[in-house]
């Protein structure tokens, strides 16, 4: 087996009051894999994505090891670490408006990172930006390149950010709930674009989401989190096969997601006894 793109071992992240938002997390993601990170709010899924990118909020303390492409990030000086992360890891953020600089045109924002990281000439970077914008199904590429963020719709901005994430030829992309802020009908298109570019480039993706339907469609493997700890790592097919595979909590999350293809399924919250069992299991 080839070396993992991302390997996390014994990662804990503590708040100033010593509460652990991530607790002894182990995770290994193979090249070309789309891994879903799923959990309810407060499970630590976004925090894990932030830890990989080295953008944890100030005041949080991190212990354990994060290795990207065989390089232990926590062993590096901060400046080298930032450069290495920027070169190999990209982010597709949740809110496409706040992630863009409001006073710079799209062309400048897309090419900056390519010029800085790879030292490409501005012209080459611009050509790649235009090419990628076409691949994310933007029709009027020339106009979008000249536009400012506020001139674009939410769906368009998210496409720009997806193109920008792939532009630097990263090995790993952290997608942090990239469709949550978008209209339901735009979601499928955005997921298609991410999946298409991912397959074409073989990029590894860490896909943070709370939607089990999205997990089912986009990932090959799932890591389920609860209370900052890993509940399980499991193949997506196996978890959704309904043959009793997977943890009781993961299966309860699937059942809690309303199934629109059936008319006879009542709403099913995660049963309190499943939570109680899980918490007991975690403190052992």
């Amino acid at each position: 087996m080839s070396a993992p793109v991302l390997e996390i071992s014994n990662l804990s992240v503590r708040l100033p009051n010593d509460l652990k938002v991530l607790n002894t997390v182990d995770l290994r993601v193979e090249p070309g894999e789309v891994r879903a990170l799923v959990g309810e709010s407060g499970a630590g899924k976004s925090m894990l994505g932030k830890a990989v990118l080295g953008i944890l909020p100030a005041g949080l303390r991190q212990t354990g090891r994060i290795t990207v492409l065989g390089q232990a990030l926590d062993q590096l000086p901060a400046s080298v670490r930032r450069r290495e992360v920027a070169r190999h890891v990209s982010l597709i953020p949740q809110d496409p408006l706040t992630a863009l600089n409001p006073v710079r045109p799209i062309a400048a924002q897309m090419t900056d990172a390519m010029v800085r990281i790879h030292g490409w000439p501005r012209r080459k970077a611009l050509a790649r930006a235009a090419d990628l914008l076409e691949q994310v199904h933007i029709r009027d590429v020339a106009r979008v390149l000249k536009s400012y963020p506020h001139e674009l719709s939410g769906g368009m901005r998210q496409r720009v950010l997806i193109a920008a994430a792939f532009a630097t030829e990263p090995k790993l992309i952290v997608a942090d709930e990239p469709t949550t802020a978008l209209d339901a009908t735009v979601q499928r298109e955005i997921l298609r674009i991410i999946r298409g570019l991912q397959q074409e480039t073989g990029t590894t993706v860490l896909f943070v989401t709370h939607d089990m339907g999205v997990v089912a469609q986009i990932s090959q493997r799932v890591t389920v989190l609860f209370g900052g700890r890993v509940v399980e790592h499991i193949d997506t097919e196996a978890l959704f096969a309904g043959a009793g595979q997977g943890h009781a909590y993961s299966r309860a999350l699937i059942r809690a997601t309303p199934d629109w293809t059936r008319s006879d399924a009542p709403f099913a919250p995660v049963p309190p006894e499943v939570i109680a069992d899980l918490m007991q299991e975690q403190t052992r």
Partner: protein
Amino acid sequence: MTALISVRDLTVSYPDHGARRLFGPVPRKTILHGVTLELPKGRITGIVGESGSGKSTLGRALVRLVRPDAGQIIWAGGDRPVDLAPLDEAQLKPLRQDLQMIFQDPMSSLNPRQKIWQLIAWPLRRYGLDASRAAACAALERVHLGAAFADRFAHQLSGGQRQRVGIARAIALNPQFILADEIVSGLDVSSQATVLTLLQDLARDMNLTVAFISHDLSVIRHLCDDLIVLNHGRIVESGPVAQIFDAPSAAETRKLIAAVPLPKPDAEWLT
């Protein structure tokens, strides 16, 4: 089936400040173009559409938070039918107790320094009802929160618990109609299921008429009896939920249904 609310040729517009010229009146942008619908008594009607389709504006017009430009909103909850559309706030006041609403984050508009029981008691006092702590606690019991929550503050509650307080606040007034606008959009699937089960049970027990606005069709399918699909301010399809899911007739409806991820892995869905 008798309708609690019948809407006829409802047109609503907002001032469009973006299109404003230096002189002259502010142009108006029409959001709803002559919408006609009925909300049958004791049933839950889902209202769906993409953002900008006018679903929230329709909801706000139903409870007269906005004043329509034209059309009628016939309220059949009193002794004789009343058209709500032309009424002013003073005329609406006696009807407001029957027209309650719950929004996505009920706490964002509430006083963060008031205790939960005070938040529930406030509207009770406004309508001259029993606004005691005991009355507020009774409402909390009905949403399965219990008196232990009475002295907490909104920020100490989870999203699902806050939404249950929002429901308690609305049902404490014993209304006939509830508008629920995206009330589970911000919640985890598990608390979403809890809140929706609660709403379903209360609606049945109290014979409530509910307009449930959502962008999530999988929720609509299991909660609602009827469905209205809006597109650019017009109704493109309406009818019983089961019938629409089995055979959607409008392109917009098919597009909305196709956007919901299939519940099991399917190689075709993203290709």
